[in-house]
């Protein structure tokens, strides 16, 4: 079992921006993404709009090489951190057949 070391980027925040983030991540080099509906509470959750008004919280995950991870986090940090309730982090993962998640 050959495993490739890659990075897992996890972003949690207002779902109104999450589809955009997923697509922007793909443009920055991610070969795919996974979105989960979640419920959340944080320091700016007052900014979060009630469920009935269509807004909720979502999580987006990207499995990407280190450089792409940094690009995605930098983009999110500039574009969204000031005005939206969002948290983002990075962790190390070992991926099966990981080469296919690295774009040339």
């Amino acid at each position: 079992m050959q495993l490739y070391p890659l990075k897992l980027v996890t972003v949690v925040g207002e779902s109104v921006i999450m589809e955009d983030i997923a697509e922007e991540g793909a443009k920055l080099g991610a070969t795919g993404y996974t979105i989960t509906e979640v419920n959340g509470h944080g320091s700016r959750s007052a900014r979060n709009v009630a469920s009935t008004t269509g807004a909720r919280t979502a999580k987006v995950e990207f499995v990407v090489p280190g450089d792409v991870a940094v690009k995605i986090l930098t983009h999110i940090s500039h574009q969204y951190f000031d005005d939206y309730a969002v948290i983002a982090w990075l962790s190390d993962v070992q991926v099966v057949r990981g080469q296919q998640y690295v774009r040339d």
Partner: protein
Amino acid sequence: MTTLLLAAIPLWGILSTEQFTRILESLERNLLTPIPLCFVLGIVCTRIHGGIKIPKELYYSIAIFLLMSIGFMGGHELAHEYEAHGVSTIWKPALATLFLGCLTPITSYVVLRYVGGLSIADSAGIAAHYGSTSAVTYAVANSFVEQTQHPANSFLPTLVTILECPGIAIALLIGAALSARERAAKAAQTGRPAKESKLGEALYEVITGQSIMLMAGLLAIGFISTMFMDPKGFQPFYDFFQSKGMLFRGVLCIFLLEMGLVAGEKLGDLLKVGPFLVAFGVLMPLAHGFLAAYLGHLAGLNLGGCTVFAAIVSSASYIAAPPAVRLTLPEANPTLSITAALAITFPFNIAFGIPIYYEMAKWIGAQ
């Protein structure tokens, strides 16, 4: 509180005692029916931390049904109207709707920015909500006038559809234009590239959003099938969608229960938003409602029609507007707009506004 009281004085001056009694009677007739009572139950439940949980899928499903029903019945009635009078009775109210759809975001913006002193983004964001409309307020107002035996003109659902978009678009354009400079300054100062604007995207999403697509789509379907189907085949669809029917009224109760649950939660934010916005959430609808009733009367609407027209023009959107504002004016604080629309104006209209518009319309001379 002073603002609120000062602003309320003129109203008292206008009303005679007899009119006041009539309003109270209308209020009672409106309030002691299941639809507003379910809203109250929802609020009570949230305030005592009660455990009612309406699955959000049920809420969305009912919203879909209500929008389809409003559209379908609108198309059905429009077909009858069209067969009887062509477009002669409709174009004036349609024009009045378009006019008010463009005016109300501007009046709202001006009052919020210059009377209330809110920021550009907050003023534009709230104005987007008040420039649009709330289909549920339409549904409740329509139920009210049907129960008073003064049903509204048949084409009112068409007007709801017309009213949905322009207000949001105009307010967002105002906000985007006026806050562009501020953003550029901030970008220069932090040395980071200016953020991408999502205005175009957001406007397109409003125009092709669920409310418009369902209402306009079902309007066309209701129109076409009334024209071409034989009445017997049409009947089950009519029974399913009809606004006087048990399904529409019944699910509206469940919907208002959920609205009450959400509004109850937002009540806690009333303190945060401050007295000005509370007064705005009550007085702006009254002003817009009066104007709408008046213009509606001039445009030929009947008593029920003027009442419902006033309700929809004065109501604030809390479905289409919030995500559009969030995407285009992210620096606007959503707590302000959502609280005003959902915890002040909506309950006010449901409980007090609709009967008041009814008396206004009567006073103006609508029949």
